[in-house]
């Protein structure tokens, strides 16, 4: 079992009324290694919150989250950062590439979070970039790339530290249909070749259908 959520709930305080607003209610999920999962649901249902909990960017009010059998409930900020750097790769709707860094440098950015950056990081980066067809763009700056290329760099950046889990929050949201399709294919291919687990938040039923499992969220609960 790669990831397990047991009775996880999360709520936020409404800044206007000061009232607590529940977002996720008693969520129980088990995700096996190598799975590809789509999280779907209407806006505001808690998809991104769930993904943030998976990615340790947020902590549950109650319940427990275990990653690789390790409970994340009582981890410190530093420990959670370490977990993210070693085991989780993120892809966001916007690429969030550093404009000051080249493509290769952007890809290598997560390795700087490791206590000891791997010696073969550069070779891995070059290999992954050639896999996504960007080998000749390694020295380019993000501003020189197209939208689809930028998002592919973001995918490679998510994979550089060989994570067990890739979390993608509407990664195709800012792309046209053609590029969106290509990126989804790329993600699934890489997920298979690298034997990672992919969890993707999406609004597109077609993309969701290409995943091995679909989790539907409605009013804060798994439907």
């Amino acid at each position, binding site marked *: 079992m790669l990831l397990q959520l047991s009775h996880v709930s999360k709520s936020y305080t409404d800044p206007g009324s000061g009232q607590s607003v529940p977002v996720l209610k008693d969520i129980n999920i088990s995700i096996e290694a190598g799975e590809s999962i789509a999280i779907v649901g209407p806006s505001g249902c808690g998809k991104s919150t769930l993904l943030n909990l998976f990615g340790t960017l947020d902590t549950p009010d109650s319940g427990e989250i275990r990653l690789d059998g390790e409970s994340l409930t009582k981890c410190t900020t530093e420990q959670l950062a370490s977990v993210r750097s070693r085991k989780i790769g993120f892809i966001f709707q916007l690429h969030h590439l550093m404009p000051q860094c080249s493509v290769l440098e952007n890809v290598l950015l997560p*390795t700087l979070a490791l206590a000891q950056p791997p010696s073969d990081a550069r070779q891995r980066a070059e290999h992954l970039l050639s896999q996504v067809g960007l080998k000749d763009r390694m020295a380019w700056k993000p501003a020189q790339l197209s939208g689809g290329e930028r998002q592919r760099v973001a995918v490679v950046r998510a994979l550089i530290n060989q994570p067990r889990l890739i979390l993608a929050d509407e990664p195709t949201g800012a792309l046209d249909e053609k590029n969106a399709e290509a990126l989804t294919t790329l993600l699934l291919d890489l997920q298979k070749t690298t034997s990672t687990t992919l969890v993707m938040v999406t609004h597109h039923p077609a993309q969701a259908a290409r995943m091995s499992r679909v989790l539907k969220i409605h009013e804060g609960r798994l439907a």
Partner: protein
Amino acid sequence: MSRLSLILTSARHYWNGHLGLLFGAFLASAILSGSLFVGDSVRASLRRVAAFRLGQIQTGVLGGDRWFTEKLARESQSAPFIFTTGSASAENGNVRVNNAQILGVNNSFWSLSPSEKKIDLGSNEIAINDTLARKLNAKTGDSILLRLERPSAISRDAPLSGSTNEQVTLRRTIATILPPEDFGAFQLIASQITPDTAFVSLSDLQKQIEMEERVNGALSALPLALSAEKRVLEDFGLKLTRVSGSQKEWEISTSRVFLDPILAEKLLATPQAYGALTYLVNGITSAKGGTPYSMITAADRMQRSEVKSDKSEVTITQWLADDHNLQVGDDLTLKYFTVGLGRELKQQEATFKVSKILPMTDPEVTKAWTPEFPGVSDVDNCRDWEPGIPMDMKAIRDKDEKYWDDYKGTPKGFISLAAGQKLWKNRFGAHTAIRFPDSGQDEAALKQEIVSKLQLSDIGLVVRNFKADADAAAKGSVDFGGLFIGLSLFLIAAALIFAALLFLFTLERRASQIGLLLAIGWTPKNVRRVLLLEAGVIAIVGVFLGILGGRFYTQLALDGLSGAWNGAAKGLPLVFEASLTTQIAASIGTLLVVLLTLGWASRKLFATPARHLIDGSITSDLSRLTSHSNLPAHITLLIALTLIPAAMASSNPMAVSGMFFGSGMLLMVTGLLYLRRWMQSDRNSLSQTLTQIGLRNISRRTSRSLAVIGMMAGGIFLVVAVNAFRMDATDSGAGGFALIGESSLPVYEDLNSKSGREAFALDEELLTQTTVVPFRVREGDDASCLNLNRAQKPQLVAVDFIKLADRFAFASGSLPQQPLEALADQATAMWGLGKGVGDTIDYIAADGSTFQVKLTGLLAGSVLQGKVIINEASYLAKYPDAAGYRFFLIGSDKPDQVSAHLTRQLEQRGLALEPAKQRLEAFLAVQNTYIGIFTILGGLGVLLGTAGLGVLVARHVLERKGELGLMQALGFRSGALRTMILGEHATLLVIGVLLGSFTAALAVLPALKQGGGDLPLPFLATLIGGILLLGLVICLLATVLAVRGKLIESIRRE
């Protein structure tokens, strides 16, 4: 790819965004390093002045009115010299310089000069320093006149000390004009102001003042030791003579007439020694006759019954018995003068019963009893006496002249020592001779034995380490580095806030990058470190440029201190110095301060969760860092309000100033805290008008708004609060006195008395409403704010405190009541001495002992700066030899006429008078200059704050371009939007200005009332109005520039 390369790449990529940070770091560094360089430069200048004024001198002895043998100085490997003061005049008499140093020197003195250049002076030649030459407009070859006082062995205040008019005038040709390196700046007191000095050949001066082979000072390039073997009796002013009476005896007497009590005590320890006191009485009367002006000796002769008498008995000579036809058992009255303060004499009398009559052939009836009274002992005729007391010459009969011819000063009567001391003991001593049996000792051996019992320190000849004093004075001098940092603190703070504000703007633009780094596993600490190091790279460049800019800033400050601000560094020739240590310290200091400021300013940003930062949001989840309580504001308010009464109750002026200032600051902080609460609460209210929406925008970025309000309020507060201490010369500061004066030579006479006025032929009618309050002056360091050195031995002066009652306003304490309690000006105590009420200052008394004076009263902004003032009686107890007065406060209804008259009539004493308010203004000019500097630097800080406001406006508008476009799309006209933006930022400006003004006024009002001052309202109103106007113009400009073009385009782009 490494973190370092990421830092450098980012710094390069975002260089334009970091320009604000670069500018802020540059400015902070330039001001901080520049301020420290000012400190370095002033210290270097003071060291240079000290090196010039002392040359190779390390130690020395200054005897003042104690003259010792030149041989003692020579044999102690030191340079003997005469140190005195007087006046110098140009030959044509058009210019006169008072209080000039007049030095008698020989070649050994010149070997101590900085250049060691020998100056050979012939007997008719003189060397003067360039300061004096400039004032006299004299050149080499010109003749000048020096007027100085011939020294007296005995204090001219002492009874029977002779005439007070013992002046010497020297006409000498200027052989050379000395620059500072040739001892032109010679001075033994720590001051940066070069005195006027004239150098005369030692032997020439000794001859002119009748002090051959005597000096009153010795200087050495080594630690000076006046060894016991080298001392002789003459060094103590003592004389050993064989006297013949009924027995052979040795007598020790002194050229000072009265033996110093400490010497007398030591000499009386000689086996079988006894003391004698001989006094000139004004008259001897009895029922049967009267005899004028006679000597009476008081001496116990226990072993000789024929002279023994108790205190109500007198043994008289046959001559006196015959003169009065007196018999044993008759009563006889002695009339005599006793000395009061100054030369004030009181005639008193005492009656004795005649117990014995000695024949004139009796061996005890001898003139040997009588010391050498100046103006008496050395004249042939009674009618030529000038004893320094009023004499009725008509009372002297022919038979009295005959007595003088036959017997000179032979006493006409003898009383017991106790009786005599009861009548004539005074502050100068209680003996005129000590006698002991002559058993045939060798005179030379005996002299040596006597000398071995005495210490030169007994008569105040103490070796002083002038070099160490100079070092301490320069080290403890006014710290211009600290002062300028203090004066520029707000400008530095404004630069830092400016840098932090613009750095934050850049970071906020990169919020999603920060979020990303956190999301991919960077720890918050690492992200923060990388970003601060990136800022550090920029700051290093800014700091480095700032060090270069600091040199420019220093040069400007030094130019200012030499020019418009010369009140702050009076008389100091400034040289530039920027030590490597200071440069390194300033660089590291600025860098640390910049990074700490940025770290502190960005703490909220780094506390924002990654999930929000990725979306570019930094406002969420900050509630845990934001207080939702008014408690902090209540607490600061309470402390501020508590401080005010506490300050009013305090007697320590430093604490009073600190508490009022602190209270004002706290009130300002309180205001900011309440504003923060208001902004937070305002977020939840409903805005129904465009104005309300504009105001809502103020609270949108609470920290930014508060930073601008704080910067404006802080600037205004400091400028207003400090300017409130700008002072004008007041009547209370001058003690109601119209004139203040100093004389080159002491004035012994009481200028309020008839006799004193007659002595100088003063116009009684003109002086009807004139009162002179004279002060005795003990030479010491000027502790006023005109002296940049820390006074090591502040000048001690003495006055009869009754004459100052109800004259001056006190900052704290009151007029001293007890002996050795002292009064000082508040500024002198606080800044010149670093002391407050209750603190003590050590002085060395005339007998070499150390005593303490305790400060019990501090005068507010007074004309008495630079001095420590004690009561005259206490002073005379410690310095019995003190003679005359050299400092005067004069109250008069016709100050101009009185000043001209007194200056003319007391020209020979070198009296220089000036309006008291003029002197006070000179003192206040220093303080006002500091305030002026602060105002300029503080004003620049406020200007920077105003520029920050402009940046804020531009930034706000850029951030809100979309929403402004939306408002335009909804139908709001551009003018209305501009008004809204201008209104919200003008509100920040006005709140800042009002908060600063009110808290400053509140803070300083009680202090001003206490000090008798008033707020300089027109000046402050202009200042605040100017700041307000400038701020509004900048806001308007920023608004117009930011809102130009079609805002609606931006919404289309979105």
